């Protein structure tokens, strides 16, 4: 019975990390390509297993802050690219389909790999620190495994309904999610302590979405007033 609080605590903590990883995987898979997304995820899990096997309990000495900084910066830059393109497409400044398949596959694999690796490491940290402090790593492993399983099944269930959302709307949502996570992890890596800790994401994501929608509305107005025969620069130079 004494193990139950530990299992529940680790379950909640790991569920938060697993949801963050699931968001990135769903975002990459739905808007880019599932096969490459799963390849990226599998690569991250292999690297994660290797790190755990080699380092064991000394894994807590890994510079997680530096990893957050690098992954956060990359995700923020990726996310802003996606948001920028989604807004330009939504406002008619860029054609709806303008990216090569190979590029889409690389982005899907890299995004899911980074997200799963970082969150996976955080799950391992939680298991080792909570489990070791209570002298019951086995119970911590049970809590973490249950959390990852529940979140993974949820992801499989919501995957099909999400696939029916229009493509550019999904890309817009993915841009919002990647930018938000990038800001969150990047700032944490730089040493910031977010108000409310992980709950700050619940504010950050809607704020990023609202600002992006605001830019879309602002760009639509002059576009609607302009004659149809006057294309803007990105329509003729898009890759």
């Amino acid at each position: 019975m004494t193990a139950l609080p530990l299992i529940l605590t680790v379950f909640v903590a790991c569920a938060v990390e697993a949801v963050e990883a699931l968001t990135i995987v769903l975002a990459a898979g739905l808007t880019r390509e599932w096969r490459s997304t799963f390849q990226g995820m599998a690569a991250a899990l292999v690297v994660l297993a290797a790190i755990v096997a080699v380092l064991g309990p000394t894994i807590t000495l890994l510079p997680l802050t530096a990893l957050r900084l690098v992954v956060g910066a990359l995700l923020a830059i990726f996310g802003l690219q996606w948001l920028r393109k989604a807004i330009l497409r939504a406002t008619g400044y860029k054609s709806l389909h303008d990216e090569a398949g190979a590029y889409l596959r690389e982005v899907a694999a890299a995004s899911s790999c980074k997200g799963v690796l970082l969150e996976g490491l955080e799950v391992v940290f939680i298991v080792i620190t909570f489990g070791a402090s209570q002298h019951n790593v086995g119970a911590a492993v049970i809590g973490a495994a249950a959390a990852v399983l529940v979140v993974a099944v949820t992801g499989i269930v919501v995957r099909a309904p999400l696939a029916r959302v229009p493509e550019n709307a999904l890309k817009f949502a993915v841009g919002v999610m990647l930018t938000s996570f990038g800001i969150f992890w990047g700032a944490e890596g730089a040493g910031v302590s977010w108000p409310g800790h992980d709950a700050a994401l619940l504010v950050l994501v809607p704020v990023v979405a609202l600002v992006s929608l605001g830019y879309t509305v602002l760009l639509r107005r002059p576009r609607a007033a302009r004659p149809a025969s006057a294309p803007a620069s990105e329509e003729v130079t898009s890759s």
Partner: protein
Amino acid sequence: MRRLRSIGAFWYDFVVGDDWRVAVVVVAALALTAVLVHAAGVNAWWLLPVCVFAALGWSLRRATRS
């Protein structure tokens, strides 16, 4: 040499994308945040979001200017 250049071009396009200024702003904002947190003791959680929104607006403005 050509192969190296094409690999470099792919990674540049992959990481930086259409507008290098956005990447520069993100990196500079993170560096400034780290300086504020570690050197000045300011918990500057607000700095990166503000810089990201400004960079996005600036990039969109440049892209849509005819």
